[in-house]
């Protein structure tokens, strides 16, 4: 057998955004030997290392970071190999950032070409679909219920119960809608699955559709993710060619197709009822619930709606060693959570771990402190509808329960670090400004209240001691919470409450 040298250069948005594509072009020009092969793998999610180039030779795979490095001056591939060795290459699986994680859902990312279906199948892929087809829909749903999986999109609703509701509807037409409108600032776990392990999502959707009796699935993908779109289109085609989508999937009598729908720059379309309106071709106005989408959803039919990570987790639950997932954690915080660490931090990236990890471990052990070298001042958890914690709260555990106690939520798992240059009154104002921009306009408190909220906070920025404005802001937040149809209006006050409470005197002085 020939001794092939493999060069891995990731093809993933963050890696490309710091130069992976141009490095690929420079290196591929040098190759004139058929024993050297370039593979565009996914990202390992250790984004501070990107572009992280690896070489596999004689069974050993090592990599080095090529951040801010140009290779256009090289003339031969040997020169590249020499350059590579000078950068002290290492095995990425040996670094703490990866070793300390518990990667179950993201176990495949980084290893190979994400569209290599052979690799997918050799690494436990599509075993679970075959299991589901063998044990039937109800037993499949039971397995998901038993796993304790809650939705990873933000609301943490029990996935199995939602599936049961759709399954129990006695209609011939049902839909599956995958919410890939990952809009929270500071989140990228859905994107990483779609770009670096798209078959996991497709398999998860296929199992879920089979379990609830849907024959058509939509992926509602935000337009800000053009590379994910490319990967999904190609992965859907490959799955069709291999009889993992289409008619009589794997010789069963189950038929299932996936259609990709692209959003058009609206955050609120990540809210499930607004998303349905958008798929149906209308303005993304939220609908009132009930009826639940599981009973009366897309085009008036029962619809299972889950986000990308939730659906991509389903295959892991049906493997023989599913206990891996379910035996982690307790209460509602079962399984692993892909936290996404970003902002002013040295080592940002995807951290799949148990929920009951402390914020300190995430920010210091994984994140390695602030990039600016200045002290941490605030950490936002759970996106624009989440909360800000102060640097004195680093021992907070990131379980669903402990964040609920602080009137926050894990949300979609975004964690953003700010150093002491942050102005918390500005962050409070941004919460309202974001609501002004993204409110669908259906509920008056959200549509107009957010505008008034910006004005009140602007006045407070000039006079922090105004009792009148403090009371007004409090009442406005209460109104938003009590009278908005969806989480956009209902949870916009969350970051503001947290700033008032955990950052005394920074927005309001008493």
């Amino acid at each position, binding site marked *: 057998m020939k001794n092939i040298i493999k060069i891995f250069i990731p093809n993933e*948005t*963050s890696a*490309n*955004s*710091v130069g992976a594509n141009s490095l690929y072009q420079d290196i591929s020009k040098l190759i004139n030997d058929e024993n050297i092969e370039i593979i565009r793998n996914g990202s390992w999610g250790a*984004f*501070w290392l*990107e572009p992280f180039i690896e070489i596999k030779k004689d069974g050993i795979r090592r990599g080095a970071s090529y951040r801010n490095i140009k290779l256009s001056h090289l003339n031969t591939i040997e020169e590249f190999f020499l350059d590579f060795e000078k950068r002290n290459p290492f095995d990425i699986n040996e670094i703490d950032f990866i070793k300390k994680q518990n990667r179950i859902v993201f176990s495949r990312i980084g290893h190979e070409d994400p569209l290599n279906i052979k690799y997918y199948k050799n690494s436990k892929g599509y075993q679970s679909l075959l299991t589901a087809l063998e044990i039937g829909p109800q037993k499949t749903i039971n397995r998901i219920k038993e796993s304790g999986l809650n939705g990873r999109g933000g609301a943490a609703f029990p996935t199995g119960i939602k599936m049961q509701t759709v399954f129990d509807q006695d209609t011939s037409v049902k839909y599956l809608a995958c919410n890939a409108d*990952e*809009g*929270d*600032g*500071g*989140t*990228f776990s*859905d*994107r990483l699955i779609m770009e670096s392990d798209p078959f996991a999502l497709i398999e998860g959707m296929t199992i879920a559709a089979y379990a609830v009796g849907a024959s058509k699935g939509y992926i509602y993908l935000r*337009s*800000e*993710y*053009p590379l994910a779109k490319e990967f999904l289109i190609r992965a859907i085609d490959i799955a069709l060619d291999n009889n993992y989508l289409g008619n009589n999937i794997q010789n069963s009598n189950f038929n299932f197709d996936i259609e990709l*729908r*692209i*959003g*058009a*720059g*609206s*955050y609120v379309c990540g809210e499930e009822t607004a998303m349905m309106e*958008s*798929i*149906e*071709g*209308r*303005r*993304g106005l939220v609908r009132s619930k009930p009826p639940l989408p599981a009973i009366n959803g897309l*085009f008036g039919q029962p619809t299972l709606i889950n986000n990308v990570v939730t659906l991509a987790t389903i295959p892991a639950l049906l493997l023989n060693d599913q206990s891996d997932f379910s035996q982690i954690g307790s209460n509602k915080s079962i399984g692993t959570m892909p936290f*996404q*660490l*970003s*902002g*002013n*931090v040295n080592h*940002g*990236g995807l951290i799949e771990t148990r929920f009951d990890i402390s914020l300190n471990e995430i920010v210091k052990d994984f994140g390695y402190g602030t990039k600016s070298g200045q002290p941490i001042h605030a950490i*936002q958890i759970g*996106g*624009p509808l989440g909360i800000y914690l102060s640097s004195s709260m680093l021992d907070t555990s990131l379980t669903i329960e402990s964040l609920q106690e602080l009137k926050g939520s894990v949300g979609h798992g*975004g964690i*953003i*670090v*700010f*150093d002491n240059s*942050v102005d918390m009154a500005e*962050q409070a104002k*941004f919460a309202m400004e*974001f609501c002004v*921009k*993204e409110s*669908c306009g259906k509920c008056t408190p959200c549509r107009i209240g957010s505008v008034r909220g910006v004005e009140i906070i602007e006045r407070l920025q000039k006079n922090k001691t105004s009792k009148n404005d403090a009371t007004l802001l409090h009442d406005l937040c209460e109104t938003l919470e009590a009278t908005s149809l969806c989480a956009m209006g209902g949870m916009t006050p969350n970051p503001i409450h947290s700033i008032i409470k955990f950052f005394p005197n920074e927005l309001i002085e008493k």
Partner: protein
Amino acid sequence: MPIDSRNIIKPFIEEKGGLMPALHALQDHLGFISKDNIKELAIAFNFSQAEVIDVITFYDDFRLAPIGKNIIKICQAEACQSQNCKQLLSDLTSYFGLEMDETSDDLNITLKEVFCLGNCAVGPSVMINDTVIGEATTKKIVSHLKENDVQEL
């Protein structure tokens, strides 16, 4: 030969909720949605023209007039805020002499805000058409524009 917009719309008419993909396809081909397009869409999907405009104007991505060949979207969401994206935005507005949502007279550049490109760990992030640029600086953006211009010639 000019592209017949009715042929672009056609494949989506029978699709459930086909208006959104039809709007995307029209805009991808023609750059914006014209008044004639609105009439054609209304007929094709059995909507009133007002209903079609209703949908177009809800979404940030759809536009009723031509804009720049290079759409530069500057992320202003929280993760990029921690990486001084406000400064970057003001640098870019003064470099190009444009305000947000404004297009240069030669229809080359349009500046826009965006909220999260999912590139949060290597911010601040900017998207030029379909290309995301991490650790963005004015210099990086300008050189990206120049490189792409050269390729086109």
